[in-house]
């Protein structure tokens, strides 16, 4: 009789645990489907709100992977890369979403400026597929260019086959970017100032800002001529000469200072332009391969 009671108790315990687990699993898959429904209706913020409230700690590994992938991918779609990166990188290697999550997670890190961690993690990523391997080299090459490490770029560029439709154009463009960035002539702010001192506006022309150079030259020329006229007709003590002379001096000194600064501005613009191009060409192959 005692044995019978113990058996019944044990049976009830097992049954209540199973039903509790089943209830939890069904609840989770329902919430995931609901979040997918919201996502399909482009209500991404609402989908994220639903997903981020699910308790990850009480889920099994496959469920956690699905949850992290769903959160990461939805965050990525609305460009919340600060949430997308860490969440996608939490997807385990047991999941079918693992390669996609890793690539997009590391791309998001690179976009946010975390190039060191993105590079180190991508290098260690275990991949067996040849296309994924080549894609990894493309990403690493892109990150190397973002860090202006042309030696590392050359290393990864050797793995480009230019044979896959999904990667070919971007591989060739990366090569062009590397060549352009290595061949760009470094301009000197001191020289720019010196040129503008000799001929107003010439320093800006040297820095690559041609229209600004002309725009600087014309008013200084006009003020110079007015100052000369004042000096010639009224002498050095005249109000006309002093007034226009002062204005000429201010514009002339400003033009020299502006030319020196324009070298740095042009350099920053060039860097920003190429960083954007590199990130764009890192992104397109990811969409080609995984979607």
């Amino acid at each position, binding site marked *: 009789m005692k044995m019978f*009671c113990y058996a019944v108790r044990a049976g009830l315990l097992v049954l209540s645990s199973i039903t509790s687990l*089943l*209830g939890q699993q069904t*609840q989770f898959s*329902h919430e995931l489907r*609901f979040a997918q429904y919201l996502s399909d*209706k482009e209500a991404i913020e609402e989908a994220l709100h639903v997903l981020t409230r699910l308790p990850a700690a009480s889920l099994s590994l496959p469920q956690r992977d699905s949850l992290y992938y769903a959160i990461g991918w939805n965050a990525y779609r609305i460009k919340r890369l600060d949430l997308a990166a860490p969440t996608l990188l939490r997807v385990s290697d047991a999941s079918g979403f693992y390669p996609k999550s890793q690539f997009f997670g590391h791309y998001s890190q690179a976009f946010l400026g975390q190039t060191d961690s993105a590079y180190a993690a991508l290098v260690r990523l275990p991949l067996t597929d040849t296309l994924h391997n080549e894609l990894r080299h493309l990403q690493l090459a892109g990150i190397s260019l973002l860090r202006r490490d042309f030696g590392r770029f050359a290393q990864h560029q050797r793995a480009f086959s230019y044979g896959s439709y999904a990667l070919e154009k971007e591989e060739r463009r990366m090569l062009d970017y590397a060549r352009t960035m290595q061949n760009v002539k470094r301009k000197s702010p001191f020289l720019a100032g010196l040129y503008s001192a000799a001929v107003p506006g010439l320093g800006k022309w040297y820095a690559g800002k041609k229209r600004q150079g002309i725009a600087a030259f014309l008013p200084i020329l006009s003020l110079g001529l007015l100052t000369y006229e004042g000096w010639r007709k009224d002498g050095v003590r005249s109000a006309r000469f002093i007034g226009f002379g002062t204005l000429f001096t201010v514009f002339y000194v400003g033009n020299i200072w502006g030319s020196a600064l324009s070298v740095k501005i042009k350099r920053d613009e060039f860097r920003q332009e190429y960083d954007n191009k590199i990130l764009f060409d890192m992104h397109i192959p990811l969409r080609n391969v995984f979607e």
Partner: protein
Amino acid sequence: MTTRFYLTCTFLCATCLSKAQNLSPEDGLLRQADSLLSQSEFFEASIAYERVLFGNRDVYDNYRAAIGKTQCLKQQKRFGPAVTFLNEQLSAPYPDSLLYRLGYERVLCQYLAGQFENALSGLEQLQYLHPQQPTPRLLSVVRILSLNELQRWPEAAAAYRALAVQQGLDTTRTPYDRLPKLKSEKKAQTLSTFIPGGGQFYAGKPGEALLSILVQGAGLYFGITSFLQGYYISAWGIGAGLFGSFHMGGVRRAETLVKQHNRRTTEEFNRWVRAVLLNE
């Protein structure tokens, strides 16, 4: 002790089984959503209403959820997404009476979203698809206000008179007896070209007109006197330069001022008509 144990286990099983079977009871969800809406938790309420639609069980529950979600979006002033949501709902198999109400909401949201052409065509569609339904006053007001915003005043005036007749109001005196007087940008530019400050005066900005006259006059005076005194570079560089740049700037400024004047006048008239219609 043993009895308590058996009762606890039975209770746990029953709860978990029922939870697994009945995950999204629409009644409970609707009540929860309505409660969130009444507490002004519009974002949370919107998600709760979507849960009902996701469950997709009863057409009347779906309708209540659709209306609830529309209210949430309107309260958040997200009128564009509200229109998109209602466009989706209008393709669902609701009965005619419910479709009419959803169409009504869509017209309101289209007006509030600034989609005036869409609001007018939504109204036409509603009348065509539901000819037996009398047009509510608010929709007639939306028609008049939408026509106003599109500056189709003769049609707005006709719609106003039709509404006034329906409501038994005075039709001999309407806001449309005094339509806003709009000015011509081309005329302002022409005036400024030949008369310094002329375009600004025409646009109703005498202060700017005087300033323009002064500066252009000063440039002209300086240029002429410098030339007569032999300062040829000053005459061209400052006199002609000052006069020329303020003259061309004045022509463009006159055009901008007329555009601003017309926009302000139209907005004031529309605001007045809106106040008259909504207070009656």
